[in-house]
């Protein structure tokens, strides 16, 4: 035992073929489900098959549930698409939450202050413009600071979230109805003035998300802007060397990123909730970061990833209801599954070679 080499080495893999990558991911999901079953049986003495059945029922149990699942998937997908260009550039925009809320705020502000003062078409145009501009500004502020003074992008965007949340909380009280309640209620409940709907009320975000997925894919892969983003992400110095104005790319990309978040805010207020509360984004600005990462910034993979997360989330809340468990239990299950999904990326990128194994290879 004089040889004090560690038991195993971690070795970076060459790129794995796509089939293997997905095989690893499927194994991870299977393992996660098994662990979830074990935890379920140990903690609740319930039959895990019933539990998984409830998960599926939660997402697809009725026509309405299916629509809501698709709608939620689209919203999450849109936010993931929004933050992706910035991530590609290695600008850590974790401020999606705040950018969405500012979009929500702008849309609600237009609806509350301009109803009956302008025709509906003009109101809707104003809402669209205002939401996108507000979201874009909220992202451009940290981008400008980073470009000018190299401030920390993660911290700055994160802090902007808190400002947005407090702003919305403040306006929820300014616009509250009735006085003292701290809630705004449904805006234009009777007249539905300024509500944006396409046919079925779930359809709007779904259509926007599909269009945006294709648009983002093209933008990132087949345009000069997309190329610049990729180069800045790889190396700022290289980018400067080949004459890319890094500061400009940074601000431009964040304007775009925030603008799409603002658009999501518009959809949340004018298309779905018709009210303004601090919980409208509901943490999805952060979940979207995970979606974007797990999908390796590929817009089409993001469809699958956001669906998976929404599916799990809705299933989890169904478990809580069906078996009268606290929602914390469904959070535990979701946590286990996400842990495995993220963890398996490690095995996609690295190989563990055990001592004996490594020797064989050397020999």
């Amino acid at each position: 035992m004089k040889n004090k080499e560690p038991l195993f080495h971690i070795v970076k893999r060459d790129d794995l073929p796509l089939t293997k990558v997905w095989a690893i991911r499927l194994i991870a999901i299977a393992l996660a489900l098994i662990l979830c079953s074990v935890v379920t049986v140990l903690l609740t003495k319930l039959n895990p098959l019933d539990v998984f059945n409830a998960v599926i029922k939660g997402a697809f149990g009725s026509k309405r549930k299916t629509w809501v699942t698709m709608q939620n998937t689209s919203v999450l997908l849109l936010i993931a698409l929004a933050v992706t260009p910035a991530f590609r550039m290695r600008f850590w925009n974790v401020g999606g939450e705040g950018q969405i809320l500012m979009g929500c705020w702008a849309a609600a502000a237009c609806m509350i202050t301009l109803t009956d003062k302008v025709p509906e078409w003009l109101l809707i145009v104003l809402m669209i413009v205002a939401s996108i501009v507000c979201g874009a500004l909220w992202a451009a502020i940290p981008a400008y600071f980073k470009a000018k003074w190299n401030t920390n992008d993660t911290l700055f965007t994160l802090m902007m979230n808190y400002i947005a949340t407090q702003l919305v909380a403040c306006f929820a009280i300014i616009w509250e109805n009735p006085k003292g309640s701290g809630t705004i209620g449904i805006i234009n409940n009777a007249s539905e003035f300024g509500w944006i709907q396409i046919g079925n009320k779930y359809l709007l975000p779904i259509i926007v998300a599909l269009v945006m997925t294709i648009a983002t894919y093209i933008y990132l892969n087949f345009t000069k802007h997309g190329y610049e983003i990729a180069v800045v992400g790889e190396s700022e110095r290289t980018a400067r060397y080949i004459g890319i104005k890094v500061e400009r790319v940074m601000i431009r990309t964040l304007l775009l990123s925030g603008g799409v978040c603002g658009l999501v805010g518009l959809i949340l207020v004018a298309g779905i909730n018709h009210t303004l509360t601090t919980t409208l984004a509901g943490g999805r600005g952060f979940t979207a970061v995970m979606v974007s990462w797990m999908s390796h910034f590929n817009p089409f993979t993001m469809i699958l990833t956001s669906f998976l997360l929404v599916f799990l989330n809705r299933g989890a809340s169904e478990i809580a209801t069906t078996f009268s468990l606290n929602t914390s239990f469904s959070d535990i299950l979701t946590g286990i599954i996400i842990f495995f999904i993220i963890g398996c990326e490690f095995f996609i990128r690295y190989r563990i070679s055990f001592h004996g194994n490594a020797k064989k290879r050397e020999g």
Partner: protein
Amino acid sequence: MKKIISLLLVLVMVVALGAFSASADAVKVGLITLHDENSTYDNNFITATQEACAKMGAELVIKTGVSEGEDCYEVACDLADDGCDIVFADSFGHEDYMIRAAKEYPEVQFLHATGYQAQIVNLDNFHDAFASIYEGRYLAGVAAGLKLQEMIDNGVLTDANYDENGNVKVGYVGAYTYAEVISGYTSWFLGVRSVVPNTSMKVTFTGSWYDETAEKEGANTLIADGAALLSQHADSMGAPTACETAGVPDVTYNVPTGDACPNTYVIYSRINWAPYVEYAIQCVTDGTAIDTDWVGTFATDSVQVGSIGAAAAAGTEEKLEEVKAQLLSGELHVFDCSTFTVNGETLTAENNEHVVDGYFAESASQSAPYFDLQIDGISLLNTVF
């Protein structure tokens, strides 16, 4: 042979169908709550609804953590889709979304606590409910007054506990400057003052129905300011635990906190929602209409005051019985206009539409509280919310 088998099969199916329809006869109730059982407010609804459903043999589905947005509408519709006969939501902000769901499912009864719109929207299947909790608050205030008197008699209070006019200071942690909260702290304060006439109260608001940190901070501010006794209308354990740490007696709302705060817990009051849910289930079973705007009272057992804690003064129980009897008989009114002034003036039928026979008639024209006046003796530390 085949015939016998098919006959048997048919028989089995008939029996199975019979069994199925028998269980389908049970009324199914869906409860929507804003937070989960860790919130004292939601917990109060959850336990009461469970109790009512168990008693009435109804089936219960609980959806916790439903936000005051489109989520509430979707969940309410989901519950209706799942065959619920009654859908009950507990938070004020749920109301608009419940009304939308009610319009879509006319055969399902939608109940909403604390709301005010049922009388306005005029739907057959949308109902508001609340209780005359101001009477319960008043009784809890009387218990607090007795405790305060005991502290005065025992010489526990210091100069810091008196304001510049020689009044004993008490404190109150509220959520918003909303009528439900104002009605609650005013009736509580009137209860305290009915025992200790020289009392003044400071109220701080947290701007949230559930914010443990803000509630704790609010309570600590009041205690640092010299409040001799506290009560609250906000849903976390923030204020009770702050009181326990500081050793300041506390009157709680929704749940008794005697277990967590054995040294300072005095008494609690709550709305007992079980009678209302039982009533609604009975109506659905009988096929009769549910009241558009239901007010629970002492008589319906909807207003409860009790679980007198170890910190309470001796004789609290007897005194409360006495005052309760006076309230029930109509001899005593909580908002008796002779006991308080607003900006130095007494309320009369001339200057306030709700004043009848010399008292402010709370919960008479609408179940949700509407006493939102600022009476003298109470000062608000912050009114942004």
